[in-house]
């Protein structure tokens, strides 16, 4: 569905996306992960066929987006990071008008709008102006709007930011069903649990480059240990104690508030620590997650 080879986007001197390669197959849920400024949104805009690439190759549905943008966009559903609803129009008008942009007929849209209102649980708000909706409702409306043309590829830029857990789980369920129907999903998210839930395959980007690619389970296997042991000795002692237990696990990481021991058997390592006569204030053994992979690949430094 989507093939990128050496895909590049430069703004003047700045390389927002620096020669990336990836492929998205039909019916797949593909994730783009990375800290702010990694180039995710720029990549999304190029796939959405609105922003033109400045280098490399990009093919979507077999077409070149630099030349045939409108034709490709006819088959995309786009949920942007920032809701861009028409504030003055009513909820149902927002869906209808957007459907018209795809040239869809009035009769088709009449039924479609009702279906989408129900999906977004906005049937009762149908006559409210978009600007009167709460943040979560606006988000649901934007997502529903992106489905009006029954897209082949649905692009979601941080779809659940600002949604409550209930709405998040409902959306995941719906996205999973869309995937079952053969819709291809391209998702960016800051929530690693979301990426693990939804994505078959993902890339981790940083500074415009791809740091890693694979399925969530794959990446965890490759970049993290099986388990993580988290121990806290109090912020003043962590560094000192870390030296004493440096031999444990595959790798240890000292954070201001706790020590992480990456290991295949966290329980055994905890016993070792206790044998050394050290007594952590709290301890926790957990499975490694995508979040560990993400932080390892992109660092813990805050990106402004």
């Amino acid at each position, binding site marked *: 569905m989507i093939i990128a080879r050496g895909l590049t986007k430069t703004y003047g001197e700045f390389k927002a996306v620096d020669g990336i390669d990836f492929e998205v197959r039909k019916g797949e849920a593909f994730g783009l992960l990375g800290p702010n400024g990694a180039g995710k949104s720029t990549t999304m805009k190029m796939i959405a066929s*609105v922003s033109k690439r400045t280098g490399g190759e990009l093919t979507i549905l077999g077409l070149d987006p630099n030349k045939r943008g*409108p034709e490709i*966009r*006819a088959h995309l559903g786009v949920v942007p990071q920032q809701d*861009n609803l*028409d504030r003055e*129009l009513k909820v149902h008008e927002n869906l209808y008008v957007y459907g018209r942009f795809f040239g869809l007929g009035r009769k088709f849209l009449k039924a479609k709008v009702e279906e989408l209102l129900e999906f977004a649980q906005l049937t009762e708000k149908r006559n409210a102006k978009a600007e009167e909706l709460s943040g979560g409702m606006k988000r649901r409306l934007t997502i529903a709007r992106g489905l009006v*043309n029954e897209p082949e590829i649905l692009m979601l830029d941080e779809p659940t930011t600002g949604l409550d857990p209930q709405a998040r789980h409902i959306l995941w369920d719906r996205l999973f069903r869309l995937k079952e129907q053969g819709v291809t999903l391209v998702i960016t998210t800051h929530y690693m649990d979301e990426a693990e839930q939804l994505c078959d395959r993902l890339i981790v980007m940083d500074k415009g480059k791809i740091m890693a690619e694979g399925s969530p389970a794959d990446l965890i296997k490759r970049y993290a240990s099986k388990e993580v042991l988290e121990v806290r000795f109090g912020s003043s002692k962590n560094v000192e104690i870390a030296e004493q237990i440096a031999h444990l696990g595959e790798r240890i990481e000292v954070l201001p508030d706790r020590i992480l021991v990456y290991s295949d058997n966290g329980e055994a390592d905890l016993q070792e620590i206790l044998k050394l006569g050290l007594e952590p204030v709290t301890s926790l053994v957990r499975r490694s997650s995508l979040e560990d992979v993400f932080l390892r690949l992109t660092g813990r430094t805050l990106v402004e």
Partner: protein
Amino acid sequence: MPSIEKAVHASAWQGSLKIVDVARARNLAWMHVAEARVRGMLKWWTSIAAFSLGNPVLYLFSVGIGIGALVDANGGSTQLGGVSYLTFLAPALLASAALASFQEEMSFPIMEGFEWDKSFFAMNSTPINGSDIVNGIVAASFLKTAVTVGIYEAVLLAFGAIDLSVALPMFFSALITGIAFGAVMMAVTSYIKNDDGFFAIIGRFVIAPMVMFSGTYYPLESMPIYLQWVGWISPLWHGTDLGRVISYGSPQQGWIVISHWLYLATWLVVGLTLAYRQVSKRLAA
């Protein structure tokens, strides 16, 4: 969540390759933009109607009849080509009303589309592209202005300021004045990133002097020659003069009449060309 279950299973998902007719979407793209914009305007139809009716009535009473009485009583008619002040003024008011209507549509609604609710970006994520947005917005503004000018003409007719036989050609000359200015205004606005009083400046330092120096309230020729250039470059003077030729056969040389049409057409074409380019560029950034 039974409602969700229902929504998911209610209809079979066919996919956009089946349900979207790209050629149709492309051919009617500008109309779909216009349709959306007209829906937005209709939310304000009461204030649009009140303004369209109130504005001419106020102007005609105060300037047309009030000042007109003074001018006509002092033999001003000889300098106005032998017609009453009201007749002289009417084509100018009609052209400025069309221009003001376009000015309004090409200011804040454009900011809204790019900055405030970013609805242009939403349009651009469908088969709609930058020039469709320009065409659609201009078409919707044309429609709104046509209503405004129509109401204005009805009032002018009621006041006896124009003759019914010239109502139609005057309607078109006023609309062409409006759209010529509107196209350029849209091109200019599409460069604006935040308001910062920009539109107030345009209103005070561009529109106001343009109305003052475009032969609106007195013949351009009665201005000192070093100020007449303001009228020559102003689309409003060209539209006003054209209206006067149409309305009461104001004596004007043929080549000047043709140059009026050409000048307005140039503004339209240049404005649209720049707007297509800048709007598309800004959407792709």
